[in-house]
């Protein structure tokens, strides 16, 4: 399911790049396997693109129930995020903290803030400038999966690093 979703995002990103930049490669656009090495700028295959960050690097980490501790797996994703951010210095990021629906609304807002902060602290620890990072919590207001069992809850207990162009104000 997750892989399929990634595939769809990739396809969509390729489609978008093709539509919005019809002349990007001039007369060479029939030869994608040539000088460009198959990389369509802005697509998920372009390592400098937000799409690449989302899919290849991984834009999110997941948390245990009522916890904001970063797992080993989460730390490895965040290290990759920090690497990407250090080589793509024109991007800033808002880290969104989320909770699953098993909790009261205001507590979950605070819990989401804790999760976003844990991510921010880790990225700063890996050398990302604090000036490029902001946090926000959505508590349980923005689930991405809507079933009411652990398969969905585990995907909703997340912190997502959302890129934006330019330094955050």
């Amino acid at each position, binding site marked *: 399911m997750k892989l399929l979703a990634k595939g769809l995002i990739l396809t969509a990103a390729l489609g978008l790049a093709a539509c919005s930049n019809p002349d990007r490669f001039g007369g060479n656009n029939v030869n994608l396997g040539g000088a460009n090495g198959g990389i369509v700028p802005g697509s998920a295959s372009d390592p400098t693109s937000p799409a690449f960050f989302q899919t290849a690097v991984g834009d999110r980490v997941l948390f245990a129930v009522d916890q904001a501790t970063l797992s080993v797996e989460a730390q490895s994703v965040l290290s990759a995020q920090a690497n990407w951010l250090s080589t793509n210095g024109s991007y800033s990021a808002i880290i969104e903290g989320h909770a699953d*629906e098993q909790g*009261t609304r205001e*507590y979950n*807002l*605070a819990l989401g803030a804790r999760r976003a*902060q844990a991510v921010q602290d880790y990225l700063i620890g890996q050398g990302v400038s604090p000036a490029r990072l902001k946090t*926000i919590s959505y508590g349980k*207001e923005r689930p991405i999966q*809507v*079933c009411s069992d652990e398969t969905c809850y585990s995907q909703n207990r997340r912190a997502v690093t959302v890129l934006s162009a330019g330094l955050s104000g």
Partner: protein
Amino acid sequence: MLRAMTLALSLLGFAAPAMAQNGPLRIEITEGVIEPLPFAIPDFVAETGGAGPLALEMARVVAADLQGTGLFREIPSSAFISGISSFGAPVQFADWRAINAQALISGAVSANGKQITVKFRLYDVFAGQEMGSGLQFQGTADGWRRMAHKVADAVYSRITGEGGYFDSRVVHVAETGSKADRKKRLAIMDYDGANVQYLTDSNAIVLAPRFSPTGDRILYTSYESGFPRIYALDVASVGKRELPIPQGDMAFAPRFGPDGRTVIFSLTNGGNTDLWRMDVTGAGAQRLTDAPSIETAPSFSPDGSQIVFESDRSGSQQLYVMPVGGGEPKRISFGQGRYGTPVWSPRGDLIAFTKQNNARFHIGVMRVDGSEERLLTASFLDEGPTWAPNGRVIMFARETQGAGGESSLYSVDISGRNLKRVPTTGGASDPAWSPLQP
């Protein structure tokens, strides 16, 4: 804009007194099991030409208010032996005793331009006498439901000895859209779901509104600026403004103090959420807690001297009470599970809360020292209790399970009886009950 109405109240003259033949008509609503008290409410008498439709409708609203409490049972008019054809005529008590009507409510409505007057008398049928004096209320015709609620409040109050709660309103979050794309806006309505008015659009997430002590203003949390911030909204003008916050990433969970000026709220800074207080102008911000744990969902005691709030300083969400001026919080919840969203009763005697245990949610009440915990509800997700103005009924939000899950408002007596859905036009969450309207 908002049915601004002046309700003039006046006493009517005494009806002919009769000797009481047994104890006074009375419902003790603290008793464990209650047989609803049978009452009759004939159509109100229309005393002027234009008052006919309202006379019928107002009697229906009064009947619905009383019956909705679960403490009263209306006797259908088909059982009536005699009627009330004139407000001043003597009551044929024998005819009402014969159908076992213990209480009889007679009323009359007159209209004069846009002004209407409703008057009523309450009779203790078996005592053969009037209970209290007749009352009359005057107001504009568009406020007719409020006038009917006032009649019902007076009847409820005389029979139970408790304050009423029918002439009150509920602010809440109206929800539309699928669970993955929920749209939220603030809405206000009468306690029974009538007269819905939307206060914000659905462009920004809004959460957890609360009334000022007089019901004229509302504090709530909105993402309007892109980040969670506190807003104050004037109910009459629907004008709103963002409250300045001292620092931090996120401000939420605002509540008015009983003085109508002090605001307590949660402020998140560096991922850590603490309680603060300030004046509603934003002046005098002062930190109330300073701990690495989550402190949120505060609620003032009615006398303004203490606050109850939730904190996970022990490792899980629990309830604490502390003096408003600061000081060591005292934990009051010790049962199994997690406790949140404490709300102090307007009577000062109880704290309502949300409890999570074994993957179920409950609304419960406990005494302010944490003793005598009682759970009133159980479901997949019940949360966010709010008190009726008389401290006898609690409203809360219940969300159903799964992808099609929807949130609705429910009310329940603090006895645990009379659980029922509150009618709303769509999904609804985060209810807050107003004080009784003046």
